[in-house]
């Protein structure tokens, strides 16, 4: 698991490149330092929004996450993989099967096929997550300050949602501003 390069194609490649730092044009605004960072965060966002996506071949664009990047972040990636396998409900399996899928398939030599399937599922979440990330950050990729503001606002809204805000309050606050 996570031993090889991973290549993104089409729009996902384009999105990934936009979200990540450009080594050649250092002043271009970005959200994440490395491709692997985009990859990992995309996994989270794909899971959060329950969004998967298939490989896109519409354009000839390509982006590659290298094996040594995975090596650096193997622990995190593995963690995320297990998380995805535990949470995913798109493939109908029993709870026990879900647990196996999350913890056993990657260790057992006999389950190579299953592992491949699982990785396919995981990566579809990654691709879906990239789409979500791109949608959220697209407008702010113009200036660094816009990116920062966007990231901050996202975090703020997220934490409010998690902590449980009173929608009544928020709505009436919004009404006042309109």
């Amino acid at each position: 698991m996570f031993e090889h390069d991973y290549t993104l194609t089409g729009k996902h490649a384009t999105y990934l490149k936009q979200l990540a730092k450009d080594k050649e044009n250092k002043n271009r605004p970005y959200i994440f330092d490395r491709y692997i960072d985009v990859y990992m965060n995309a996994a989270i966002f794909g899971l959060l929004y329950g969004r998967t996506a298939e490989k896109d071949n519409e354009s000839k664009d390509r982006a590659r996450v290298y094996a040594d990047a995975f090596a650096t972040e193997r622990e995190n990636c593995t963690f995320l993989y297990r998380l995805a396998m535990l949470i995913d409900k798109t493939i109908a399996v029993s709870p026990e099967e879900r647990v196996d899928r999350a913890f056993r398939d990657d260790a057992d030599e006999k389950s190579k096929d299953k592992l491949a399937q699982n990785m396919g599922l995981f990566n579809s979440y990654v691709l879906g997550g990239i789409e979500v990330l791109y949608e959220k950050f697209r407008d702010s990729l113009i200036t660094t300050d816009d990116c920062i503001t966007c990231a901050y606002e996202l975090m703020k809204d997220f934490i409010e949602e998690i902590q449980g805000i009173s929608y009544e309050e928020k709505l009436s606050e919004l009404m006042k501003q309109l």
Partner: protein
Amino acid sequence: MLFKTLQMVNFRQYKGETKIAFSCDEEKNVTIILGDNTFGKTTLLQAFNWCLYGEALLENPDMLLNFDVASKLLENASTDIEVEVTLIHSGIEYILTRTQKYQKKNGKIIGLNPSIKVSYKEKDGQTESIKDTKIETVINTILPKDLSTYFFFDTERVGTISDRKDLAESVKGLLGLSTLDNSIKHLGTKQNKKTVIGQYYSSMDIDGDSKAKEALNRIQDTQTRREVISTQLDTVVSEINHYENRKEQLDSILRDNQTTAALQKKKENIEGLVVKELAAQEETRRALIADFNADSLPFYSQPLLKQASDFLHEVKVDDKGIKDLTRPTLLDIINRGRCICGCELLEGSEAVNNIKNEMSFVPPESIGNTVRNYRENMRSLGRNSDRIFNGIKTRYEELYRQKVRVQDWNDELIDISDIIQGKENMKRFETELIDVKQRLRDLNAKKERLIREDEVKKSDIERYQKVYDSLVVVSSRNKNFMTYIKYAEEIRDWLIATYKEKETCIREELEEKVNSIFEQMYHGHRRVSIDSKYQVTLLTTIADKEVASGESEGLNRVKNFAFIAGLVALAKNKIISKTGENEFDLSSEPYPLVMDAPFSNADEIHISNISRVLPEVAEQVIMFVMKKDWRYAEPVMSTRVGLKYTLNKLSEQHSVLKGE
């Protein structure tokens, strides 16, 4: 004195015959002549001047003949130009006609000597002419030339009217003080041998005592010198005043400039601060992004972790195994043949069987360990959410504050730049100030010298006087002269006292009158003050003190109008002086006001104020007005307008006056 009519024949652009009558009505005493610049107003005004005094202040004053007419003149042919003014003075109607012949000789148009004829109408309607030799005298009786300049009002001169030095003299004349003033001057002093008293002293016989004679000469010469010094001193003092004013102006400009230097420094300081802050901003940004990158995963994982944790809790995965122990690891140990604890491991032994049993609790047989690890990871990630957000929030707010600071500083920089830019180049003012200071030094030195010289002369005179007094012989001839002197000195002293009294009185009256007129024209906290030289200053009350204030152009004009109006109003008053039983009338004749474009450059409010006040103050007002200014004056003045004309310019050489 009132003007009745003006008639011109081929005078400049007034081709042919032009006749204009002026309103002499008591109520409707205003005559308006409308027309814009270059239509011929100045010429009309100068026609008066030329008729009365033979002077036309126009360009090319030797060619007064209309150009069209001139161009049609044949060689050796001639034609006349004429200006006729009829007026009423002291109840008598006068007709003044000045004519000039122009002749074409050798292709050139030459003007011959103008001639003037004056006649007057007797009460019975008979016309009598005045002898040529008396004409100038009569005209000066009607309207003396130097005073005429105050009543033929010229736009350009409004600005300077109360700045002229000879003003004092003319005002005195206008207000009837000239008689007293002149008689005082004529009577004079014993030191001035050109005067009556001086002559009496000079005539005294000093019986061959050459020392006394010499003393008298010295006295009188020194006195002359003193008078010269006095004039020079006046000039120097006025120059000093002028330069003092300029120095003050320059000082104030340069004081502002010092603020510029301070501003410049401030600007540089702020620019430095901005640079630092921008660098700090960059750092904050960088840190923020780095934090975000580092913390984004745990932050956003929270809800997912919760889900997974809940799920795992339900499913009850057993985790009996030893942490991180895996099947391959156990196989390795078995193959090694020796356990970690040191025990020998033989195939089929109990130890090996135990180990093999354990395998069912480790991955891949059992995922308990993995799950247990996983759970621990989840727990450690779970605690950080708030801290992460607060960290980012702090940085974000810091960034915002930094940006606001920079924005404020930039705004300040822009303001400062604007102020600095507004200042003019200071160099030339500095140079001028140095020059002005030098001049002041020189002038003051000169002033000192003159004062000292005057003191020396004064004490010389006193010395000579003592000598003289001690040597004069009291002969009978001298006794007569001494009588004359006594009378003369007595009269002179009385004249001086009367003059002082009247002059102060008049000046106060004038100031009061001018102020009351000024108030009607201008509403504000200012007052006019008139000094002994009849210079007019505007005062403003600041913190209970009256201070000479600066004057805008508009305000200046209003002040000058008020002054003229005040003079005219006062000229109507009489000054009575008692000399025994005779009451001596020292008053002077009221004059009309002939004004050329009095309104241009004055604003609307002032125009209507001025238009309202002037007809009330002058006997007769003849006004040349530009059409655009008449708009504002008409509503106010129309009830006082007796006659109205319009000037039309048909061509450069031809203007026409039309009445309504």
